[in-house]
């Protein structure tokens, strides 16, 4: 382990940065802690972290502003940490290029899972490896080339739009995709940002993929934010 993965924690609350740093160290990551926005912005270029955990509520600068600054010159994955209930903040952060978000209070296992997912996606992008042709998670198999979807061996017939939504989520499995992001990907940047059509399509997809639409296994709803495809082998 010569090259430990560097993770920068931007968090003003000592108690939180302490426990996060301890957890990360215990999981063979190399944590870096910044308490203020200015500190973070000066540390990032010199340390080149592999991932940034960004708390949105900082004393000297709005977390969103830091995100914008980072995104000006870097595609380092950023996971936003915010309090629950502030959906609009999350959506804004995600639409500005954050890779994922995690709501306070969070457990360590949840945090580690998010970090793994974000790192995996960033590796894929930087190493130029094209996404695999087939996506598998639990009983769900998606063959992107043949445009086939099956659940536990049984073929599922999706409409074209439904397939596009499912494959979009599958390609970013583990990450939350906002309504606006999905709409733009599917219907273009000038489409009306009305998520009702998307949500109705999603309800149909759930009925086709899930055994119980109210207790989904594959696609989770983050109410007010977007959707997330499960990311377990």
């Amino acid at each position: 382990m010569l090259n430990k993965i560097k993770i920068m924690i931007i968090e003003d609350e000592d108690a939180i940065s302490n426990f996060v740093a301890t957890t990360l160290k215990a999981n063979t990551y190399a944590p870096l802690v910044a308490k203020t926005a200015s500190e973070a912005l000066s540390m990032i270029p010199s340390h080149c972290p592999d991932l940034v955990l960004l708390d949105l509520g900082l004393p000297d600068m709005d977390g969103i502003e830091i995100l914008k600054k980072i995104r000006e010159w870097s595609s380092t994955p950023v996971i936003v940490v915010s309090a629950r209930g502030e959906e609009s903040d999350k959506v804004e952060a995600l639409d500005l290029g954050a890779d994922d978000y995690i709501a306070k209070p969070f457990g360590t296992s949840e945090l580690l899972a998010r970090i793994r997912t974000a790192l995996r996606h960033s590796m894929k992008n930087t190493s130029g490896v094209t996404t695999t042709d087939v996506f598998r998670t639990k009983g769900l198999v998606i063959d992107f080339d043949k445009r086939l979807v099956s659940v536990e061996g049984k073929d599922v017939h999706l409409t074209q739009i439904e397939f596009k939504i499912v494959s979009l989520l599958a390609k970013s499995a583990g990450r939350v995709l906002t309504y606006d992001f999905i709409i733009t990907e599917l219907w273009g940047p000038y489409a009306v940002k009305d998520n009702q059509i998307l949500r109705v399509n999603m309800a149909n997809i759930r009925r086709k993929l899930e055994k119980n639409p109210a207790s989904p296994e594959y696609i989770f709803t983050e109410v007010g934010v977007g959707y997330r495809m499960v990311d377990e082998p």
Partner: protein
Amino acid sequence: MKKRIFKSIKNYNINKLFQDFIKTLAVYLVATGCALALNAAAVMNDNIFGVYMLAVAIISVTTESYIWGVLASIGGVIGVNFFFTFPYFALNFSIAGYPVTFMIMLLMSVLASFLTAKVKFAAIISAEGKKRAETLTEMSQAMLTAGDYDTIAELAAEYLSKTNMCSVVVYLGPPMQSEIIKFKTVNETDEIILNSVLEQQVALSAYESDKPVGADINEGSQNCKGTYFPIRTPDFQYGVVGFLFDDKKVILKDMYSYIDVMISQTILALQKQQMTEQAQQILLETEKEKMRSNLLRAVSHDLRTPLTGIVGSASTLIENEDRIDREVGRKMLTDIQQDAEWLIHMVENLLSVTRISGGTTSLKKQDEIVEEVVSEAVLRIRKRFPNSKIDVTVPDELLIVPMDATLIEQVLINLMENSIRHSDSPLPISLKVSGKKSGAVFTISDQGKGIDPSRIPDIFDGKANKGSSDSSRGLGIGLSICKSIILAHDGKIFAENNINGGAKFTFVLPMKGDNDYA
């Protein structure tokens, strides 16, 4: 108004005119026949005048217009002159005293005609008056039972249309932006006419003034067809009622005052409704206020307990680091974790209270797909209670309900947690959603020990359990928050016991389009 009556006479039904003409002619001919017969029998020539007088009286009574009586009397004078005075079968008005006879007969017949016409009119008025009195009673009774603005407007339109035999429109609120518009039309095209921009503008001007406006009042000044009366008291504008009066109908003189009476009746009903709603609002406010104060009281107790636990355990661990064996230390850490988790949950509940405390207006209701909200709530509860079993059922069809998703999620979490913590049963709890006419019905039921029946009536009031122990802490707060949230959504929530045992909590959220005018 006078003008209208004349106009209506001018437009007097041709058919009726013809009938009256035939009647007059027939009576006149019969009278002439009788007079000729009497003359032939030479029974007192003086009776001939009497016969004609009788004929005039009969004609006046049986025909609609007094014109016929006058015509008949002129005819009578001419008849007497022609048939029965010298020279016979020729007109000669130069006989001495004849103009006097003529004048007397004419005056008498005119008088008779006027008298009968007056009697007839009085009869019509009294019959009409009786009918109106009946309609008014009927209307006020119907309005007494009306429970919302919609019904009141509908009833007003119906009765006003019925009594005036014309199409009616009732606006509650300013026309052009009224939330309630009720039409009662006698023919199909009337609704289109009443709905035209011009008509609505005239209606709006009636709303803004305190006098009736429209075709019937300021004739010719506006091209509109309708006549609009404001529904208002000196200090409150309720709306406007518009009529499309039919020109051909005979309109009675006091019709406007009658319309005024009916409008007052409508205003009374509207005021009653307003008062009922205000009373309900006040009741709701006081209930909310009561709930909030109960909540604060319960919170201060319920927050201190876990905090004491956390501080105590943590300081024990720090101070006695070496003397505590691993097992006990671990147990204390687990306690800290659990208490903290519980506090998080509590704080989230309190946050939802702040979200609704600003009244219903601050509620950010959006159309949500029910299964999405339900699944997120279930996911969260499963994270906190990994060993709990929850059966979730949602309807196959898509259920879209306007709500604040975060708050409804909180309600679902509270109710599920309540079942998991207090049912004392390992059996699965069930969460079921169904779409009914009354709204979206959410039911959470367990198979545990159920609720103490004596607690059911005030279980949502935030009162701590009588034998309050820490094991049941939070129960009151969670449920009272549920109630506040559901009330803020104009929904209903209730608790009961299953027939087969176990507690059952149900709440109903109104679906789209259920909202009343308020």
